[in-house]
């Protein structure tokens, strides 16, 4: 099966939307350009709209006053392709699918797709550095909590949870969950949300709950005032990016760029010194993780700032030197 197919073309989707709009009433050039701008690539309108207006793609009929009606009368929804069905069938083999369905439901879906070949099998892949304490996807309580949370995110409802954090002290937390985060490294789901104030009057702070630590949860009704999640996400950012210098030794540039590819970053080559400087933007809650990731590169990376981050690096490096060389650290 060819992955790179015209059927999934962004242009087909744009034209499909233009045809849909122009089936109900004539559309203008401007409207077509807006649809292409919204659903296409940034220069798609320049290519698609003239083709449609000139009749080179004879899909529209010109109406008076420079407007156009679709020649296609049906609201077609394309059948699922062989590739899409094979992919869905492969996904149904993943143990995480039971977060969405019961065993019986998965069997029914698999039965519907039994004629399709698998695109891949879970066993084709070996995740050699994934953490060994992934979430218990097979547990009923976990599945139930996952579904309640997913539904709350979709319907913008509040949630009341009985939560057991790492310290073991159970507590009740009311929150507005706005998305569910999956970590490929940890093989865990976390709920990102805004905690409600104890007195119920508005939101207090951003909160992240480990799905596996939720003892129980229940829908607490609609959230009447929605927090500004964009602002919330922005507020999680550390004020300054970490600035590092990469020597290039031991293929460090390539290793480092790929390692930190999931972070937003900016890199520059400093010609006179033959090194690279890279700014890595991160969320405050990920600071320790980023710190130890940077330490894992050893001396081929040098952290330059910001000062509080650099101080932590220096403390660890100094403590390490003392440990290995059996030096009793001075009181400073």
């Amino acid at each position, binding site marked *: 099966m060819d992955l790179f197919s015209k059927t*999934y073309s962004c242009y*087909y989707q744009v034209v499909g939307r233009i045809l849909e709009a122009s089936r109900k009433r004539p559309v203008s050039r401007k409207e077509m350009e807006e649809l292409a701008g919204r659903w296409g690539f940034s220069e798609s309108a320049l290519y698609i709209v003239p083709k449609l207006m000139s009749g080179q793609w004879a899909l529209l009929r010109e109406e008076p006053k420079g407007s156009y009606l679709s020649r296609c009368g*049906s609201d077609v929804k394309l059948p699922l392709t062989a590739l899409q069905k094979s992919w869905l069938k492969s996904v149904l083999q993943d143990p995480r699918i039971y977060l969405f369905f019961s065993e019986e439901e998965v069997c029914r879906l698999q039965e519907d797709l039994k004629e399709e070949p698998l695109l891949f099998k879970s066993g084709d892949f070996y995740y050699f550095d994934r953490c060994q304490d992934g979430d218990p996807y097979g547990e009923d309580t976990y599945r139930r909590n996952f579904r309640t949370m997913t539904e709350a995110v979709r319907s913008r409802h509040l949630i009341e949870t009985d939560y057991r954090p790492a310290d073991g002290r159970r507590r009740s937390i009311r929150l507005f969950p706005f998305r569910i985060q999956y970590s490929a490294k940890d093989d865990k789901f976390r709920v*990102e949300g805004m905690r409600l104030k104890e007195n119920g009057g508005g939101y207090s702070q951003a909160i992240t709950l480990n799905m596996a630590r939720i003892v129980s949860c229940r829908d607490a009704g609609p959230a009447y005032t929605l927090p500004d999640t964009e602002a919330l996400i922005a507020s999680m950012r550390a004020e300054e990016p970490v600035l590092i210098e990469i020597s290039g030794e031991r293929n460090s540039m390539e290793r480092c760029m790929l390692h930190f590819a999931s972070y937003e970053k900016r890199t520059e080559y400093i010609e006179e010194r033959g090194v690279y400087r890279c700014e890595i*933007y991160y969320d405050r809650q990920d600071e320790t993780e980023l710190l130890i990731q940077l330490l*894992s590169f050893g001396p081929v990376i040098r952290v330059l700032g910001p000062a509080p981050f650099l101080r932590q690096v220096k403390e660890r*490096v100094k403590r390490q030197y003392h440990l*290995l060389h059996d030096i009793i650290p001075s009181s400073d």
Partner: protein
Amino acid sequence: MAEFQELIKNFEKIRDYMREFFVYGCKVRQDFTGKSLRTYDNERRRIECFLGDYIRSEYTSKGKQIYISVDSKNIAQNPLYAAWKAKSFTDNDIMLHFFITDILWDGKERTVTGLTDRILEEYGVEFEEQTVRLKLKEYEEEEILQSRKQGKALYYRLAEPEAFESSPLYEHLMDAVKLFQEISAFGFIGSTVLDRERTGNDLFSFKHHYLVHTLEDGVLNELLETMRRRCRVRFENRSARSGRVTQQEGVPLSVFVSTQTGRRYLCIYLEAKRRFVNMRLDAICRVVRLEEYPDYEKRQEELRRNRKACWGVSFSGSSRSLRMEEICLKLRIDEKREEYVTDRLRREGRGGEVLRIDEHTVLYSGTFFDCNEMLPWIKTFTGRILDIQVSNPAVADKLTNDLDRMYQMYTDTAKEG
């Protein structure tokens, strides 16, 4: 001068440029020496078209650098999927796509002649029957259409929707697709399922998420197909370090994935050397499926046994005389206040044994093919390492040397500051 087009015929063409802009992002026009500057300009413009919101540019002493800037934690869908949705097509392709599906939407079946005539009648466009026939055949292969033979005539109709599409399960399936389009192999296919439903991911976010993997999916598909058929394979391998291109042949057995370094590897068995070797997936191109390999299951079983002793992707250390290397790491971890670090050792230790010696000390030990691969992980414990013993002494030497260099580096910084 040829007119610029956003769409592309060949995915490979854009793969390297997208990777360069996304992963490195510090190269300027003159650094792209492999192709003409004109090609660079076109590819750069194309990527700017695909990823407008994520493109950044700035002037440096070397010139203008363009890069893709994405925080993968805060996106609903991998923006690089755009490249998979940019295949070029002809005027006939797009017209036939909409004409054929529009006509067949009534559920009736039609012959090639019937469809060709109807297109002329309904839309005023005349096509050769052969052109229509080829498009019908193409869509039948994609399972968009189904055909039925009656006498000598072939009748086409739109494929029936799947039974589950009209069941209440479908909504949940779309929720699952919102997740798996990002966490599963070939996720861009999932994104096309969401496109079909005119919906997007509004539920999930993703951490430790390597967006660039999608660019290797074409190669991955060919390799998995070869594995499925239990065949040998030949491909070109381009070294990330030297850029040197070599031909490789072997038995593809598995795909090793790192969730931490952003790398994926093809694990192959080299018959001549009688060894397993991992090769970077992003360095592989021009895959050719060869003949069936008779001992495929046997090799897979051997690999399953062997991979338990891999720390990462290496099946032998630098001290070739030793089959396996033993490591013993003593760490300072306070039992009362820092037990989370011991938990991390267990979680990330890949089967190594974790033993608390006293209230301040924990011992980690294990046996692996190549302990050199463990060094980056061990260095994440900088500030806690009391002692390291490795049967291959070069590994311990390298660690202590690195830690000393780091001390020099940061104490020098302190003096400078």
